[in-house]
């Protein structure tokens, strides 16, 4: 498997073509169909576009992502293509417009190869909640690839695309990246436009890339980041050239290790691998210090109250009236709504709508929803304080490596707790990257997470690039 940066050099030298690269991925998809990573494959369209991009490369006017073959999580709209969100309810739904990220990828001459499987409406941590069957981890097919962007992670980790886009509401890019041994970046909230992304929890959702190298992540972020007038929460902050922050020294960089993340509940094999990398950073001039994020133990509870509340509102639109599958048998309008929703949504989506409806309902709003909004401020302030002393924070991505299919599916709370190290970045709106940093005793990949200040993707990319290449 080759990363985009090296493929780009081969394309410039003329030793390969986009068509050849795309055909290779399509062949791999056919061979590894049982991994169930894709929900739609654009075979003819991708090959046709590859030939067109090859012509552009030959005539010297190709865009900056020319030759990048990318897979898209099936929660992002591509005009005229199916947009299922891995839900039975949207099985036959076709998007009528392009998400902003899709327009940007097209303008930069990327080649979109297909749409990837996921947990239904991005709700899950294992990709077992897809209405179209689970995705298998290519490193051990009895294990999950993580979720919710499991299909995107597997597409990249098993050589079916050079990169993929996923979405991250509480770890849905970083955790599958860690479980499959690749790079996953969740940008700052507002850094990338959410226009055309089906909303799960609007104040948490962010689109980001899966790649085989940190440099590839920087190259893709260069293209997809930026203000979008169609999306009022996208930030009007200039986008730097992210690759200019790579290949830098670590001297003088201040790194924090939160003591609340390195406790007995963390698998020692994981902390060992991470601390070895931290030691390397220290040897290269970084200053490492222990920090405290006192509200860490409340992040999962806060996250599940706020995101389910937002989800219950966002998913109210699926009523079987305007789009989506309508139940066949009902006696009146109300029953049409209830039956269409109950037949269309899977168990986890229903559970979260129920929890969200409960925490927003009269009598419980203050005790749960408002309380959680207040704790969200305290969690964000923990990070604000920490970042006055350090430039970035290093933590594990997950408390364990990839777990087995079926291991946690009947126990929702245990599944929720597997997000313990990732949800804080979404609660605080800060950028975070997961990079592979070694393996455990079973040879399963371990991820290392770097958290940065809001809109400071530069620093986390710089540190991630250093660790990758040291």
């Amino acid at each position, binding site marked *: 498997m080759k990363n985009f940066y090296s493929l780009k050099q081969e394309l410039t030298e003329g030793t390969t073509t986009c068509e050849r690269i795309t055909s290779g991925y399509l062949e791999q998809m056919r061979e590894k169909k049982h991994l169930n990573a894709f929900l739609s494959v654009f075979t003819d369209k991708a090959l046709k576009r590859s030939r067109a991009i090859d012509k552009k490369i030959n005539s010297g006017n190709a865009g900056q992502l020319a030759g990048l073959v990318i897979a898209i999580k099936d929660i992002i709209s591509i005009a005229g293509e199916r947009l299922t969100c891995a839900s039975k309810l949207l099985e036959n739904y076709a998007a*009528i417009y392009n998400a902003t990220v899709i327009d940007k990828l097209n303008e930069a001459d990327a080649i979109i190869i297909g749409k990837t499987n996921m947990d239904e409406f991005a709700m899950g941590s294992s990709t077992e909640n897809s209405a179209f069957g689970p995705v298998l981890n290519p490193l051990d097919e009895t294990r999950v690839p993580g979720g919710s962007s499991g299909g995107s992670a597997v597409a990249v980790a098993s050589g079916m695309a050079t990169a993929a886009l996923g979405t991250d509401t509480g770890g849905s890019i970083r955790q599958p990246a860690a479980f499959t041994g690749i790079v996953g970046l969740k940008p700052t909230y507002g850094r990338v436009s959410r226009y055309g992304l089906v909303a799960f929890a609007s104040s948490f959702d962010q689109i980001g890339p899966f790649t085989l190298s940190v440099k590839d992540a920087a190259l893709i972020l260069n293209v997809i980041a930026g203000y979008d007038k169609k999306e009022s929460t996208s930030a009007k902050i200039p986008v730097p050239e992210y690759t200019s922050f790579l290949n830098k020294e670590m001297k003088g960089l201040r790194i924090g290790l939160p003591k609340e993340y390195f406790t007995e509940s963390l698998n020692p094999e994981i902390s060992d691998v991470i601390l070895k990398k931290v030691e390397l950073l220290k040897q290269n001039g970084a200053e490492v210090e222990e920090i405290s994020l006192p509200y860490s133990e409340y992040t999962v*509870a806060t996250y599940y109250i706020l995101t389910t509340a937002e989800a219950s509102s966002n998913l109210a639109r699926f009523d079987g009236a*305007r789009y989506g599958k309508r139940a066949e048998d009902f006696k009146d309008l109300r029953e049409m709504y209830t039956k269409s929703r109950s037949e269309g949504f899977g168990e986890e989506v229903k559970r979260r709508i129920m929890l969200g409806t409960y925490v927003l309902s009269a009598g419980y709003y203050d*005790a749960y929803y408002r309380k959680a909004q207040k704790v969200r401020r305290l969690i964000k302030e923990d990070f604000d304080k920490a970042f006055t002393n350090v430039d970035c924070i290093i933590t594990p991505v997950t408390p364990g490596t990839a777990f087995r299919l079926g291991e946690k599916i009947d126990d929702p709370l245990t599944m929720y707790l597997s997000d313990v190290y990732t949800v804080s970045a979404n609660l605080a709106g800060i950028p975070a990257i997961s990079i592979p940093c070694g393996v455990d005793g079973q040879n399963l990949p371990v991820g290392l997470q770097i958290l940065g200040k809001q809109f400071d993707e530069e620093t986390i990319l710089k540190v991630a690039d250093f660790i990758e290449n040291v």
Partner: protein
Amino acid sequence: MSVTIKDVENIAALARLEYSETEKEKFTHQFNKILEYIEKLSEIDTTNVEPLSHVIELRNVFREDKMKPSFSQEEILMNAPSKTEKFFKVPKVIGDI
């Protein structure tokens, strides 16, 4: 705080969802475990803390109120499960729902 099967029925009605009798029992049990966990937040004193609804604290975002082209009726109706000419078709709504 713990919820009963009756509470679960009420929440489901608010969310326009329904569960079978056996699902209801399993769900109530799981739901109570989750509620017990999120109850943790009551340990924290938040007396003088303002709620945070948006991490990037934006002010209202305004734009000029100008007419622009939008999607056509055909496009909007393209995914409708039932339609008639220019309209979404739903069961007759007269009286209580």
